[in-house]
């Protein structure tokens, strides 16, 4: 990001962007809230979907419609629609997508080949579980090679449930639906694989992203044959060893994992002249060439269709086909969930995920507890 900021600052002499990096999206959000409360916000901010939605609802983000209307070159049809729709709230646009992210499957090519499993045939989770059994190696009670590793936490499990046809909320948004058979069956399969079949495991706890990198290390060092991780991991992976594939669906149901854009917004308290300067930076970052270059360097998804047509991107994709996997997945993905309770439904799911992945509590029990808690939180705001 700093490199892109430097390039932008060098490309013109009207605006100077000073980037302030934070430890995580969560930290950015906390710092921003404090800044807005103190009436001293930055001119432009990078937020995930839930954060952006919450701030837009509180009317602390500036609508971008007038800037977009005055830009003759702006082509909204060029944005990937799942990403572009995120910033539109109550008929006004509060954010533009900067880059997209989704969770995809990463496989260790040699290990799959050794077990005679073709990654292209792993189209459903049933296929993945069967392959994991075939690949897993045990020395007595100890497992020396795991067939697969989901990433700790609720996100992967939510993707699996959505791909089975589950929904978090009912159509009218009044009922939480996280204990339906689609949820229970998909989450129970993970518990069974971890604790009964011992074909999978998770890394949990530790500092910051420690668990994430421990999971990646298992696949890179031949301790596990695959994992489910972010499209943004591509910058860290060695693709002479690793292969990327879209997330599988389930028998009788197409895959529908979440794809989410990380969006950029302008706080409402920002001065008009700074707002205009911020727009220039947003235009620069979301133009096809810059967005394509960002995608090449990080593995994150471009937000514009035209970015995939940029020559540099096409050249890169011809030698690194894995970059196209998350883009293909994003086109048919579920939109990111907006938690109307401000985080309590997600918290209930997070605790249920811990119960299943760490405590070996049956999915039906964990999800019914989460359902009761999440429904109470939803009822409280209605």
């Amino acid at each position, binding site marked *: 990001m700093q490199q892109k900021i430097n390039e932008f600052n060098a490309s013109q002499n009207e605006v100077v962007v000073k980037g302030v990096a934070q430890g995580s999206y*969560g930290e950015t959000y*906390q710092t921003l*809230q404090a800044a807005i*409360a103190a009436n001293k916000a930055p001119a432009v901010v990078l937020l995930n979907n839930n954060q952006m939605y919450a*701030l837009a609802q509180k009317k*602390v983000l500036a609508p971008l419609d007038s800037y977009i209307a005055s830009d003759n070159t702006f082509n909204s049809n060029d944005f990937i629609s799942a990403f572009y729709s995120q910033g539109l709230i109550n008929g006004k646009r509060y954010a533009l997508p900067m880059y997209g992210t989704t969770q995809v499957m990463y496989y260790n090519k040699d290990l799959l080949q050794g077990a005679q499993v073709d990654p292209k045939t792993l189209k459903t989770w049933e296929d993945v579980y069967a392959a994991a059994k075939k690949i897993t190696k045990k020395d007595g009670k100890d497992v020396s090679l795991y067939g697969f590793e989901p990433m700790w936490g609720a996100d992967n499990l939510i993707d699996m449930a959505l791909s089975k046809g589950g929904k978090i909320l009912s159509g009218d948004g009044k009922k939480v639906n996280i204990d339906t058979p689609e949820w229970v069956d998909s989450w129970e399969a993970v518990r069974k694989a971890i604790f009964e079949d011992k074909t999978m495991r998770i890394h949990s*706890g530790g500092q910051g992203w420690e668990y994430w990198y421990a999971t990646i290390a298992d696949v890179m060092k031949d301790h596990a044959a695959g994992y489910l991780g972010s499209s943004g991991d591509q910058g860290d992976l060695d693709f002479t060893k690793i292969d990327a594939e879209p997330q599988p669906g389930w028998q009788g149901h197409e895959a529908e994992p979440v794809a989410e854009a990380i969006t950029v917004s302008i706080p409402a308290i920002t001065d008009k002249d700074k707002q205009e300067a911020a727009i220039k930076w947003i235009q620069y970052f979301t133009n096809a060439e810059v967005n394509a270059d960002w995608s090449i360097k990080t593995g994150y998804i471009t937000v514009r269709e035209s970015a995939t047509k940029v020559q540099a991107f096409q050249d890169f994709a011809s030698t690194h086909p894995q970059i196209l996997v998350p883009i293909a997945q994003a086109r048919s993905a579920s939109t990111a969930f907006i938690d109307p309770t401000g985080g309590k439904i997600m918290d209930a799911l997070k605790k249920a995920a*811990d119960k299943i992945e760490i*405590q070996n509590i049956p999915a039906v029990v964990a999800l019914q507890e989460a359902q009761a808690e999440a429904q109470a939180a939803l009822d*409280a705001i209605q």
Partner: protein
Amino acid sequence: MAQNSDSGSRTTRIQFKHFENRTALLFILPVLIPLVLFWLWPMTYSLYISFTDWDYMSPEYRFVGLSNYGHLLHNTDFLAALKNTMIFSIGTVVPTVVGGLMLALLLNRNLRGIGLFRTIFFSPWVTPTVAVSIVWAWLFEPKVGLVNYLLQIIHLPKLQWAQSAEWAMVEIIIFTVWKGVGWAMVFYLSALHKVPKELYEACDIDGGTDWQKFKNVTLPLISPTTFFLIVITTIDAIQAYDQIQIITQGGPAGSTRTLLYLYYQAAFERFNMGEATAVATVLVLITVLLGVIQFVASKRWVYYR
């Protein structure tokens, strides 16, 4: 005339009293101003916010009366955090105070190098919680941590520690006791020094055993220190945050989420300031209630010379 002089002297007395009060006020102002500014006012304002639905940023908010408190009573997260706080408090206060006394009794003698031992036991208290929390997280690492290695040597099963809902709280309690026990020891050492030798001599003349000396002389005479340590470590336990944030972030599955951590999540993750300040108010009430109970109970067992 006499009456006049009498009323005159009363006037002088009253004037002097006023002057004395003003002078006294002037002397305590330097302390009073920051106390009101940074403690009394924020606390009162926080109580006010707990009756609103303020979200930390919006200029508008609504007055919602007692509804934040009502929600807490039906909130399973709050009740679980209350239970976790109680377990953590009992689990840390008792071993810290008892362990501190035992260490003090062990080190309360004039041997060579005893000062070094005292320093070693006290040192955890002065190390920054965040830094040593990270070190302990490594020690308790289930796969390659030193603790599980030692357990294996004595043929005990490896435990999952911070990665299991059963043992995560135990890990945090062990860490907290390790950090506080040397601090309690220092107070007890000072208290033990102040016990008059004559009382032990009298006990010897009466043919008292070591246990009787400890029970009837030492314990009553160091009881003010015991009382002080119980009050302070209880307040500390209720306010524990750093080690939980570093080692478990309140997990797994909320098993180490204490009231203060719940407050942090409500305030700075969900930005529900009304709910958060309601939790904070309950926290203050619990602290005050425990303090009062301890003070009332102390009349029965604390012996002030």
